[in-house]
């Protein structure tokens, strides 16, 4: 005998590999699109949650960047597989909460899957394209190799665009960085589904953390955090960009602004540091 009543999903933050409620107890009530009908309470991340996410992200980063490029590629590919498995669920959520048509919602999922696959295939190739052996004027083996910057905060654009979100996320972690994604209102209904994709893709816990936040609420805190090495600021709000640039100066954060093309090599190299090593050649 079934009860006829659905089990509703509680939408939580995805932190350190777990689904948790925000510590502050702050939430936002979400309705069905163009309706007064209750959809869900969205738990919102606080400053303290953010600091916790940085700790988890910092702890995860060496392990993640230490994996082989092939392994990172397989995990990125598994993200595409998990996303495919959640296609119906995400389409339904986006129709209910964001008012997307079936076709539009499908396109969102397609965009995300395309991005995951694109960068899955890049993880063991980008170094061939961006690293270098430098022809030095002397008896030295001199090479420039890329490495991850470290903890990176991804601030999504306000408009829902799962393809661009997945591309940014994939480009960041493809290079061995760990990532804290701050998702604004249009993404809130899919926070749980995205978290489930990452939670089931064999990513080491803490490699990706996802917080739902109100617009710009955490701006000063993530831009000023000394353990955050880079900020991917995809929001087009110019005033906010200027503030983030200013607050990030204390530890000389790398502030990365949107690129037109979400699928390209430069997206990965935006999040890489380059180290040049000199070794003498001789007996």
């Amino acid at each position: 005998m079934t009860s006829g009543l659905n089990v509703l999903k509680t939408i939580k933050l995805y932190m350190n590999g777990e689904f948790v409620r925000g510590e502050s107890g702050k939430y936002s009530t979400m309705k069905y699109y163009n309706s007064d009908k209750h959809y869900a309470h969205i738990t919102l991340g606080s400053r303290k949650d953010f600091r916790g996410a940085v700790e988890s992200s910092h702890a995860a980063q060496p392990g993640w960047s230490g994996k082989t490029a092939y392994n990172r590629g397989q995990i990125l590919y598994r993200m595409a597989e998990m996303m495919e498995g959640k296609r119906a669920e995400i389409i339904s959520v986006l129709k209910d909460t964001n008012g997307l048509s079936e076709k539009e919602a499908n396109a969102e999922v397609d965009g995300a899957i395309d991005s995951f696959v694109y960068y899955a295939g890049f993880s063991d190739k980008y170094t061939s394209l961006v690293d270098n052996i430098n022809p030095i004027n002397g008896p030295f083996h001199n090479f420039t190799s890329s490495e991850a910057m470290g903890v990176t905060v991804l601030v999504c654009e306000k408009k829902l665009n799962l393809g661009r979100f997945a591309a940014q996320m994939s480009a960041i972690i493809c290079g061995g960085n760990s990532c804290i994604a701050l998702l604004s209102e249009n993404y809130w209904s899919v926070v749980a589904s995205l978290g489930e994709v990452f939670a089931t893709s064999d990513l080491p816990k803490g490699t990706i953390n996802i917080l739902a936040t109100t617009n710009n609420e955490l701006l000063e805190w993530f831009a000023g955090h000394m353990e955050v090495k880079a900020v991917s600021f995809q929001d087009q709000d110019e005033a906010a960009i200027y503030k983030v640039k200013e607050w990030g100066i204390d530890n000389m954060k790398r502030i990365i602004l949107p690129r037109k093309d979400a699928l390209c090599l430069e997206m990965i190299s935006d999040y890489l540091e380059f180290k040049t090593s000199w070794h003498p050649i001789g007996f």
Partner: protein
Amino acid sequence: MIKKTSKTKKPVKAVKTVKVVKAEKKSKGFKIDYSPSLEGTSIVTIKPRNELFIGGKFVAPKSNKYFDTVNPATGEKISELALANKDDVDSAVKAARHAYNGEWGKMSGKDRGRLLFRVARILQERAREFAVLETLDGGKPIKESRDVDVPLAAQHFFYHAGWADKLDYLAPNKKVSPVGVCGQIIPWNFPLLMAAWKLAPALACGNTVVLKPAETTSLTALLLADVFNEAGFPAGVVNIITGAGETGAALVNHPDVNKIAFTGSTDVGKLIAKSIAHSNKKLSLELGGKSANIIFADAAIDQAIEGVVNGIYFNQGHVCCAGSRLLVEESIVDEVVKKLQRRLDMIRVGNPLDKNTDLGAINSLEQLNKINELVDLGKKEGGDFYQSSSPLPKKGYYFAPCMFSNVTSAHTLNRIEIFGPVLTIQTFRTPDEAITKANDSRYGLAAGIWSEKGSKNLKIAGALKAGVVWVNTYNKFDAASPFGGFAESGWGREGGRHGLFSYLKID
């Protein structure tokens, strides 16, 4: 090319006497007599007064003001430099914009390359003149200006000349274009070389430039202006303005500048970043460092000692990537310190024009005072202080090389950049401890590793948070080798393929 006529400079008396901190522990000395071997200065003519280089011409400043520039080896004034004010900066930016929108902007990469090749060749032809002027103006030993600064500057132009018509290879499937008008501000430690590091890639990429050399060392940059004219560059492609902080600030804040490139201290770099945060100007920064030089017990010790000496005492320690923090494996620390002390006493401090001189003059009185203050502070904080017994010239700005062994990570001299010939020495027991201590810095510019074990070197080099890692060598530079730091040591790279991205838009 017309050779400059020589002019004998009258010896002048020191304006200020300089107090040098006395060593707490001086060595017994290591005495070798060297006959002086002075480089002649007749090849250089220093104009008594230098104007601004704007729109291809030397022009008097609108400010009507000039300031003195001194030879730090004697403390005497050698010339006057024009002080560029806001209006002068505006004229320079306008000239650069005019060139960018005009002849230069329309020129092919091939022709830009041709002009840059000419600059490289002219620099090689006039190398001795540049080396002597660099030493007179900045106090660095002639053997360094002659063998390092000038040849590397020429190489930078030669290397980047070849890129000018090959930029499309940098980003396949993308449109590559110049950024526009670049404002470049350079430091006093490698005046000509830094000008080359800044100008060569910017011009190869098709930008135009307003360059501001440091106020204490502007003469070789101004002589370089002459080279650009000889090479036949269109007017306004390169503009050189002289002045101090206010001039730099006017350049940074000029609304028609598209990009700022700065090399200097982290504090000033942060000020620049802040002042243009509310704009869309592109910014690259090559800032300070507190680089670790690590010696393992399995190193070739004598080679390592030479590397440490070159790492910290090269160019009076006025090197952003100087190996100022020595980390020594505990089991060999006594041997290393003893050998270093012996080697320290063999460093010849003296007249920079003498070809025997290893350590020349400190670049300015201000810098000498800073080094003295920091060393005094270091002595108060503890550690074993040792200073070379090398006699110092009676006038001019000199500082005998020194080191502090037995210091902790928290010691101030281990935390902040001194920019002088001052080494600190700590020990470690395990490779992990060496990595932790090396990375325990807000900077991330460079590092050195000394060990004969290849696999260990690769492991440690990978773990160090630094943009340049020298293994069994130190302080090597090359136009093809990207240079720049992690963390608070800056944004972007200079040199090599990677350095070009600082001067390009990729769409």
